[in-house]
């Protein structure tokens, strides 16, 4: 059977049955911005950063099945403007203080902001009041940085079999919660060895007492921008923590 292909920004990209636009682009080494997508988990299309135009329609690249001859536009000024606006909304909804965040240099949100040349927040800051949960002996939860990608929810439920995390509330009140009567991580069976401890694309789930141990210059995105780390984005699996 002939290889099937679609085009992304004019480039022919082969794909296999069952693959999404995102799967095909990652396999071909083409960068489409994304936050909530992770190759190990069922895509959910919630962050909308991977929005592309497929045959003229806006779709999420991570959930849209690839089809023969599909013409996909991704790296266009119009789409990148929209992505930048979505990033700005994510930044102002939380408390993202990159200068003192230990995830700086290793954070997908920050890396995308650099990639898409976000120069400021544009919108008024919400400054939500979100106390940290430091009750667990090995892991700190800093809810200030949560972008509601649900990767920890999916990892804890689908890989760890624990369902430690969930989203609660609706609309602007939606927030990450811990599945314990007390609401404290210490009162769950969460472990630093869990997959969920290593999938957070930002700095919510933090291994305690390790902050800033990796020097500047050796962090994941110090050497190259995220758009040139497609190989790493594509092969993210259980080796998330070790892989630099």
């Amino acid at each position, binding site marked *: 059977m002939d290889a099937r292909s679609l085009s992304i920004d004019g480039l022919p990209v082969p794909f296999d049955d069952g693959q999404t636009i995102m799967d095909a682009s990652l396999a071909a080494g083409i960068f489409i911005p994304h936050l909530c997508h992770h190759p190990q988990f069922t895509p959910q299309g919630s962050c909308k950063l991977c929005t592309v135009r497929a045959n003229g329609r806006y779709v999420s690249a991570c959930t849209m099945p690839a089809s023969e001859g599909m013409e996909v536009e991704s790296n266009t000024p119009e789409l990148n403007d929209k992505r930048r606006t979505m990033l700005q909304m994510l930044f102002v909804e939380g408390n993202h203080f990159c200068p*003192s*965040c230990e995830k700086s240099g290793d954070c997908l949100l920050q890396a995308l902001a650099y990639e898409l040349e976000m120069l400021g927040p544009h919108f008024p800051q919400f400054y939500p009041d979100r106390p*940290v949960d430091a009750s667990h002996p090995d892991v700190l939860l800093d809810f200030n940085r949560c972008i509601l990608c649900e990767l920890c929810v999916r990892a804890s439920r689908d890989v760890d079999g624990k369902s430690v995390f969930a989203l609660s509330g609706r609309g602007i009140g939606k927030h990450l919660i811990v599945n314990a009567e007390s609401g404290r991580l210490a009162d769950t069976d969460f472990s630093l060895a869990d997959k969920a401890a290593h999938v957070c694309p930002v700095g919510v789930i933090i291994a305690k007492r*390790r*902050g*800033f141990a990796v*020097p*500047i210059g050796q962090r994941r995105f110090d050497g190259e921008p995220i758009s040139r780390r497609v190989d790493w984005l594509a092969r993210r699996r259980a080796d998330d923590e070790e892989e630099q």
Partner: protein
Amino acid sequence: MDATSPRTLETAPPGDTELRRVSIDPLSRVEGHGKITLLLDADDRVQQVRLHIVEFRGFEKFIQGRPYWEVPVMVQRLCGICPVSHHLAAAKALDHVVGAERLTPTAEKVRRLMHYGQILQSHALHFFHLASPDLLFGFASDATRRNIVGIAAAYPEVARQGVLLRRFGQEIIRLTAGKRIHGTGAIPGGVNRALGDEERAALLAEIYTIIGWSRQSVHLVKRLHTADPELYDGFGTTPSNLLSLVGAGGALDFYDGRLRARDAGGKLLVDGCAVRNYPELIGEEVKPWSYMKFPFLAALGPERGWYKVGPLARVQNCDSIATPLAEAERREFVDHGQGRPIHAPLAYHWARMIEMLHAAEAIKNLLHDDELSGSELLTAGPRHHEGIGVIEAPRGTLIHHYQVDDDDLVTMCNLIVSTTHNNQPMNEAIREVARRHLDGRRLGEGLLNHIEVAIRAFDPCLSCATHALGRMPLEVELVDCLGQRIAQLRSSG
């Protein structure tokens, strides 16, 4: 207090309702935002002089509830000129929290190198970029060329050396902390990187030039003093106590040591005071017209206990400097005082350049030390809930104090910043300048710059200095136009 006491200009005598207010706002060529106000009577006699710090930063409050390992990186953001000082003071305090009572040799040497680089770049920045225009052109010279651009035009080699000295210090910071400003090198218990052989070789290739230029800088300031001793020894001079860390054997040490205080005549008041005892050594007073607190030696009280910190205090508080060129310069400096401590604000510049020379020599020694490239970077021991870190920042003694709970979150933060120690001395210096140079004269830009020259000599960092929030002891008075108190509110710390 008698009528000639230097404190008499703090508050204008009550009753005169016709005082004219002159404000120097913003204060230029200093770090941060502050202003000076003068109250003058109808005869242009100065009745009141105050340095106000008008910005509020509040780091002491918002560091609470954050994980302790984040602190050295977060608190350094309170300054753009000497962030390394806060970075290291916080890391030193948190070393105690993680039980790292003694760092590995590599970690301590990398931190010291970072700190000496910081001293060098900060002192070069202050002298060449901020202070030298006043000193080389004159206090009342043409304001349009009284800046580093003017220096570059009139004294190109001086300006070039100043810029390159600073660049070298910043390069050391980059190699030890990852960035020239706001890096991450020091972490509780040690550092996150050491220097490679190539990095050391690159710095060594320049260090002898840097030492030579530093030495020339000392000689430049010395020439200014000897050319006009009356001005340089008398301008804004107010005797006070002196406070600093001193290292082993009483040597000058910017990174570690014990607290020592002398009185204005040079007599030892306190020696060998462990830094953990600073709360007993130092008291703090709050005044309603400034966000910056007024520290004093607790045993002497606020009236007699105020003190200077920084280069002028350090160079005279120590018994020696461990590097030969700087030690020779220190001896000459001390001899200039003819047996008594020098209290002239303009002598800060001389002492500052001696310290820059010492930093350059110390950098050279470290670069030849193979332990700078070691692999043992971190250490730890039994956990504690409290840590105090004291360091000699470019501007003086810097105290960081934290308490951390069982969950690793900071519950208390107290910062006593170098510039805060110098609050009363700066106020007294500008009152002395006002009394000697401004009193009874029509004020113009040149005369007002005299006030700024005195402030600049202390190299204040005003943005570093205002952090207390919440439980500050505060007294509020409502005063009528005749100075009579109508009502009073008081909250105790």
